[in-house]
């Protein structure tokens, strides 16, 4: 149970709840018993489907009831029952959407929606065309975009979005598949920019970006920045600098920056790597100075980031002795300003020392 306030009921209120509950329990148990009996009798009728809907409306977490629902749908299809299947499946989609609005985090509802969509092409009907299927996925994309507007961090929503775009890419005919994937990845990259612009701390969007960048660098859309990785890196660093200056305390863009540097730098000539690191270091140091002026204390993420940069410089071959000393100074400051993670910073002191010793042996 999440986010439900605790209440201690008085004896009178408890008795009141007991009476209310007793009616609800009777209804629920009667319906549940009917459904179990129908299922055990292998009843796969539209009437049972309707009863099943009633039960799931009371309890959308009841996975066995969702399973029975799918058994009914499969049996109706197998028997080529005299029903309008397109209409039936559309009503299933409507049914799940209705419940997702009430329970956007319920795994079973999401799962059923996916199942319905995946079975759409199998339904016995003359009207299922590739154009119709494409339209179905377009609709799904619009629905999930709306959901992510209401809750931009709902991970079911992001998961579903990736699933839908995956299905859209798979729809392309064989010789188009590559191009379709690249195009979709590019659209999704733009989508993360849009989400981040709306809220810099949208960690889900930064995450998604980290998944798309390697794909796009591997197969760049013609004419895009991804064709020129070092230019892309420069642009991305400028974008991140803006994020850092707007909210230095948020971890999202810092972690993305760390990842981006580790991912892209090793593909570049060493001189260019060093120049990039020096540039980023300058930006971060300046930001930290501003933070110290404002708050009187170092910004944790600036210090952490300077540590990352120095570690990379050490790898490429800066003045190793000096870098180690500077890293140890940073860590000592971190122990002070971030005492909850003292154990982590102390371990870091140890590992910097050990690594340096191994290098020098």
């Amino acid at each position, binding site marked *: 149970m999440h986010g439900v306030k*605790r209440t201690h009921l008085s004896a009178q209120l408890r008795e009141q709840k*007991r009476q209310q509950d007793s009616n609800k329990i009777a209804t629920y148990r009667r319906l549940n018993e009917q459904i179990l009996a129908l299922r*055990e009798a292998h009843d796969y009728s539209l009437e049972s489907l309707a009863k099943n809907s009633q039960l799931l409306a009371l309890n959308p977490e*009841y*996975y066995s009831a969702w399973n029975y629902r799918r058994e009914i749908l499969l049996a109706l299809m197998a028997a080529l029952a005299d029903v309008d299947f397109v209409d039936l499946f559309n009503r299933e989609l409507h049914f799940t959407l209705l419940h997702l609005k009430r329970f956007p985090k319920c795994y079973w509802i999401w799962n059923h929606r996916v199942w319905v969509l995946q079975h759409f092409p199998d339904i016995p009907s003359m009207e299922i065309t590739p154009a119709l299927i494409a339209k179905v996925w377009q609709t799904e994309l619009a629905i999930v975009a709306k959901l992510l507007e209401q809750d931009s961090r709902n991970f079911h929503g992001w998961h579903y979005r990736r699933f839908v775009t995956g299905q859209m890419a798979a729809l392309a005919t064989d010789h188009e598949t590559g191009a379709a994937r690249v195009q979709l990845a590019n659209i999704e990259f733009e989508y993360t920019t849009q989400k981040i612009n709306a809220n810099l701390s949208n960690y889900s969007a930064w995450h998604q970006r980290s998944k798309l960048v390697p794909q796009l660098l591997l197969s760049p859309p013609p004419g895009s920045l991804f064709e020129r990785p070092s230019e892309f890196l420069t642009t991305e660093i400028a974008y991140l600098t803006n994020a850092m200056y707007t909210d230095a305390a948020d971890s999202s863009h810092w972690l993305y920056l760390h990842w981006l540097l580790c991912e892209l730098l090793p593909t570049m000539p060493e001189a260019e790597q060093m120049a990039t690191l020096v540039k980023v270091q300058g930006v971060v140091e300046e930001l930290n100075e501003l933070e110290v002026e404002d708050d009187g204390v170092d910004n944790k993420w600036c210090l952490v980031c300077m540590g990352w940069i120095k570690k990379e410089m050490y790898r490429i071959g800066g003045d190793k002795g000096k870098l180690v000393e500077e890293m140890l100074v940073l860590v000592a400051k971190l122990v002070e300003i971030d005492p909850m993670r003292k154990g982590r910073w102390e371990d870091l002191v140890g590992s910097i020392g050990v690594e340096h010793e191994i290098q020098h042996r």
Partner: protein
Amino acid sequence: MSFAREKHIAYIDALNKKQDDYEYWLSEHLRMNGLYWGLTALCLMKSPDTLPRDDVIAFILSCRDPNGGFGAFPRHDGHLLSTLSAVQMLATLDALDVLAPSEVDSIVAFIMSLQLENGAFQGDLFGEVDTRFVYTAINALSILGRLTPTVVDGAVEFISQCANFDGGYGMVPGAESHAAQVFTCVGTLAITNRLDLVDQELLGSWLSERQLPNGGLNGRPEKLPDVCYSWWVLSSLAIIDKLHWIDHAKLYEFILKSQDDKDGGISDRPDNQADVYHTVFGIAGLSLMGYEDLVEVDPVYCMPKSVTDGFKKWPYE
């Protein structure tokens, strides 16, 4: 506030007697898991006999599905989640021998039948895929001593595809890191002896950042703290040997503040309604940090360490 041990024991003991509550009936689909949470919490609080052993075993056996697995309740469908809870409880009660060898074979066959070509597991035949189910399958097979190279290699391959830019893991390849999914992935890699695949520095850092100024832990950046994450984050840190990367005293305080000191039980955060799920994970977190006089918990299996010590370790000789 002090740890309300006796109240928590009484709270769990009373859970099965709440037939007057509508919620009792609405949660049938979670009963097997709920019983595992209750039993485990009681064992950790050194009160394993609070629930009559024979009753628990009888309930577990009554949930057997002809498909080979266990459902959450009699006449409910066999599912990996409830199958793991059933197997865990039988192991905790030292009662695995109530299953005939042919019955164990059919449980193993049920679990293995749910592994897909890419190494992932679906929760049942209706296709939901999630790293939770990989952990569930590998955990149950490990308790039964029935892992195989094929099952293990596939699972490890799938899990490694779920790693992310921040060192964490998500529910499927591409999905955002989430502390509960991290636990299932790292737990799977621990059981299969492949922790070498984890970027332990990076993951440990991300996990340690889950602790908020009030001492509680969240499951993802920018989310509220929650007692169940004291388990998902803490156990993951323990598995990669970085339990000391967060502040134990502050987390201890947060968990104790989330107790219902009147009626027993622990909730997701202070002043919320207690439930058995947050009760067991709160207590397991306390055990992992060595607070209160609790039985030592195994961070990989979330069962008493004395029980898991007896499991056959992978790779089998």
